[in-house]
C-alpha cells in the first residue's frame, strides 16, 4: 500500500505540474468523448445483455393506439 500511495503522490505531483489550471494545453480537450467518436460505447458483456433482457421484460414499451371513433 505504501508503494502504491507513493506512486499516487508522484502522479498527483505530475498532474499538477503537467496540467496547470487554465493552461493552453486544453484547447483540444473533448468534454464528452463518447459522443465525439473518440470513445465509442463498449460492446455489452454477457451480464449486461442479461440485465438488458430482464429490464425489457420488466418494463415493456406499451404502445397506445388511437381508438376508432
Amino acid at each position, binding site marked *: *500500500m505504501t508503494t*502504491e*500511495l507513493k*506512486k*499516487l*503522490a508522484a*502522479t*498527483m505531483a*505530475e*498532474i*499538477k505540474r*503537467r*496540467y496547470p*489550471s*487554465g*493552461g493552453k*494545453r*486544453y484547447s483540444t*480537450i*473533448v*468534454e*464528452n*468523448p*463518447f*459522443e*465525439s*467518436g*473518440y*470513445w465509442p*460505447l*463498449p460492446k*455489452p458483456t454477457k451480464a*449486461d445483455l442479461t*440485465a*438488458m433482457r*430482464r*429490464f*425489457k421484460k420488466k*418494463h415493456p*414499451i406499451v404502445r397506445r393506439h388511437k381508438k376508432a371513433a
Partner: protein
Amino acid sequence: MPKSRPIRHAADLLVATRVPTKQAAAILAREPDSPVTQAVKLWGDDEAPFKNLIAADTPLARRWRNIMRRLLAHLERDLTGQTVYRGWSFANTRQRTVFMKPILEQRFFVNARIGMSATRSLAVSTSAPFLNSYGAIWEIRAPRKARNLEPIFAAIGAKYPEQREVIFPRGCRFGLLEPATKLEVVRGGHMLRVPYFTFEEA
C-alpha cells in the same frame, strides 16, 4: 469472520469496505495533503485536469482512475433511492444524435467511465456547466449503486459539491423507461428546449 481494520488514514479508504460517506469525508478533510484527498478533489473541481484525466489513455490518467475506482467501490451505497438527474452538454445536435442513437435503439446504457456524476436537483443539472441548447437531460429513477459524494466534496472544499453529489461507478446499467419528452427551461434569458429521457437503474 475476520475483524475489519479500523480506518485511521485516507489511504485506508482504498482497502476498507462499505465505508460510510460521512466517515470518509471526516478522514479526507483531516488529511488535505494526502494523495487520496487530492485525487478526489480533482473530481470535485471542475477544472481541465479532471476533464482530461477521465478520458485520457496515459499512465498518469490510468493511475488516477484506478485510485478513484477503488475509492468509489469501497464507499457505502446510497440506498435512499431518490431520483437523480444528469445534464449533458454537446457541441452540436449531431453529436447528441450519435451519442443517443445506440442508447435509444437498445433502450439501455452501461456506464463505461470510471464514474458518472449526477445530482438530486433538476435545477442544478440544467444549469449552464451541464446543459446547453444541444444537450439533454436524464432522469434516473431508483438508483441503487450510486455513491453520495456530496459530504466528501463539501468537507474537502471542492468547488462543486452539489453538481457532482452522486457518482455511479463503472458498470452501472440504466434502462430507458419512456420515449423522450421535451423539457423547456430558461437559462441566461434564452429558452432551451431539450430532450428529456427517463431511465431506471437496471
